[in-house]
């Protein structure tokens, strides 16, 4: 979904590195989920964070999480859209180490809409929800990436028109997503990591050999 809005995301994914051995730690602190990503990708942590926030979104006006030392901030839009798909208005505030700025994803009519900007004060002023605004203000210079979400209605009044995600997905479905050959090759390489080495026995295990030579 992120790639339908920004095909360059694929270039970043194509450079995926091996997962750090230390792995991810989740813990709870002051009504917020904390995630020590230790260099692990938002691919790994992002979706489950949104699942968690959605699961608890009816218990408080605003739910939040912070990811320390996460990587691949390019997929933030996809992470937030997962939340918006659950009916949340989901905000991410990036740390300065990852370029700063913010993204908002929200349900809109029958689809989803994504907004992006740099000025957090402008976001506070335009988010249209007191609880969200407070929490965003607190996250103004975060150590990690801060996620804030609410299932309550919001009245966004942002300077940016945002992107219609459903339209972008429909366009990608019918026209495709432009991608560099080298990126495609690298993505294909990632898929091939899941392929097992072959052998004569392995080839027989496809079953395209006469019955008499197959033992199982």
């Amino acid at each position, binding site marked *: 979904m992120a790639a339908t809005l920004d095909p360059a995301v694929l270039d970043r994914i194509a450079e995926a590195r091996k997962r750090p051995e230390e792995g991810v730690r989740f813990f709870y602190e002051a009504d917020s989920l904390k995630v020590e990503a230790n260099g692990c990708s938002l691919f790994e942590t992002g979706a489950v964070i949104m699942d968690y926030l959605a699961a608890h979104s009816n218990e408080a006006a605003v739910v939040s999480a912070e990811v320390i030392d996460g990587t691949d901030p390019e997929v933030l839009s996809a992470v937030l859209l997962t939340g918006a798909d659950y009916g949340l208005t989901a905000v991410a505030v990036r740390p300065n180490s990852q370029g700063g700025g913010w993204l908002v994803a929200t349900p809109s009519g029958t689809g989803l809409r994504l907004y992006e900007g740099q000025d957090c004060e402008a976001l506070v002023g335009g988010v249209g929800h007191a609880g969200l605004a407070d929490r965003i203000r607190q996250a103004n210079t975060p150590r990690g990436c801060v996620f804030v979400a609410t299932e309550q209605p919001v009245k966004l009044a942002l300077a940016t028109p945002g992107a219609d995600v459903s339209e972008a997905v429909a366009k990608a479905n019918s026209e495709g997503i432009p991608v560099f*050959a080298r990126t495609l090759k690298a993505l294909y390489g990632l898929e091939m990591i899941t392929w097992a080495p072959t052998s004569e026995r392995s080839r027989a295990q496809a079953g395209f050999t006469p019955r008499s030579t197959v033992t199982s």
Partner: protein
Amino acid sequence: MKMTDLRSFKGNLPMSKTASETDLPPFLQERLTEAAGGKEQAERVQGMMRPADELMRVESLKCFKASRLSFADMFSRRMVERNWRIILARSEVHADGSGKFVYNVEAEGRRMTYIARAYPWDGIEKVGRRADGALRDMFGALFVGEASEERIEREFATFDVKSEGDMRTTAEVIGWTPANRSSRHFDTVVDSLAAGKQPEADLAYLMRNGGFQSSGRNGSVSFHGIPRDHPLSHPFYADMFAIYLVRIFSIDLVNAIARRRNPDAAQLDRSIARNLGIGNSSGQGMCVALQRWPHWVATWVVVRELALAFTKNRAITANARSRMHAAIVHTIDIYKASDPQVEDYVTPNEEIIANLEAIDRWLDDADASSWNEFAKKVAATFDGETREQFNSLLIDLEPEFCDAIAPWLRSGSIRRRDFDPRMSVAVLRGILRRNYTWALEYDRTLVSTHQCFWYHSEDNGEQRRGERVIDPHEEFESFIDHIGLVQRLASVLTAYGDDARMGDVVLDHPDLHYAISRVQYLDGIPYAEIRDSVAHKDFIPADLIRFYHACLGMRGATPLSIRYVRGTFFQAEPLPQDLSEKTAPQTTQVSTQKEVQV
């Protein structure tokens, strides 16, 4: 997060619902009520639908036979009824058998282009397996719309790259149709025609389908990107049309090569050409598809079973008896014409023929008042394959009702697999109790129950099946074991309190995200899961491949090994010339596979 509830999940579980106890999707319920003539009759029909505990076993599914509700049959009727036109616009063929063909298609107000590129015969017989990569005897491309000359030439140039991974198309293309020659049949036919003679009449096919590459693969358009009002915006219609076009191309190609060799060469007689289908070999990857898209399986089965129950509820009239008699005679002809070569995994054709003849005799002195009674007698007397063959003929007896419920084959298949993070553990446990008792009670203590692991090979990602402990690479296992997955989910849930949410569970166990969403989204769908272990040592992939083939519309699918099934599509179906003359398609196809392929 609460993790205090350590109550055992299993124990005192209620019996799972039978299909007849499960609500039909509203669309089907409405069509049934209308056609049956009221709620009471509709309930009676529903009561004749077999329970999932019986129907969703591999032993039952493997016996399914093609019917009016199979995709190839529906697609053929559509081509005829809606007056499709397929015109060979231009062709060029060289002495070595290579060539380029361009077809124009007019279908329901839309124009499409199909192009086909033939390569010289390299002397290598190809089954059409994924590991073959770009090693094919032909490539074709079906465009969403009408393609320009420049675009056509660009696609031909792409084919000539002939290197998997380096060949890319665009979203203007619905898919590619790689295919391979039947070495024996193809050359035999060309030789006969070049000599001015017609070939022998009972050939099955000239080319074999090499796997329709579509829905995003190689850069082709996504299925969801095909405009909703496009005639191919329906599950498997593009696939069916693609292989139909390969069939037409194969006929045009032999005619063209023969003419190239001898300007006075004969051209294939239309009746012989009509009897040529397109060969198809399928491997065990089809089982993986069935496991990954269980709502497809559920959709196909519920539509078929409902149609069957509807007919069973009907009285045996003289007219219906007569039509059944004709259908049996025709079906016997198909079996007689086929040559399965290997019958180790199927009911032998001779046996099915004898059984159908017996059923036909029963028709003459039937004392049953309804088809339900008759079908019960058939089921009680004969094997599963005979039973399901007869059931398919029963389905064909009620074409109006079949056509009324057929739209569900599209609607039911495009369901999204959602995940509900707010669902409580208590609710999910309830779903598991309701829908998965059969899986939770499955005894996996014996290694044989999950002895096989399925994996993709570095040979182009080809799907293969190894044995745990014996074969290395178990860490490459891909998903197939739904029973193991559900049992693990139930086991993990014992560590959570009733109030915990799915969002909590996946934070701790992200690997269970898929399991939870599978259980969630299939809830309420009749016939949603295959109720056997596909990872079992004794599971025969060919059984589910045959089920898949029956749903697609293949006749006479026969396994050549436990993991490899072949058959023929579109044999005895209309040719483009027939379409222009609006010839009704046959309701069944002749299948004669006479070639050993490996």
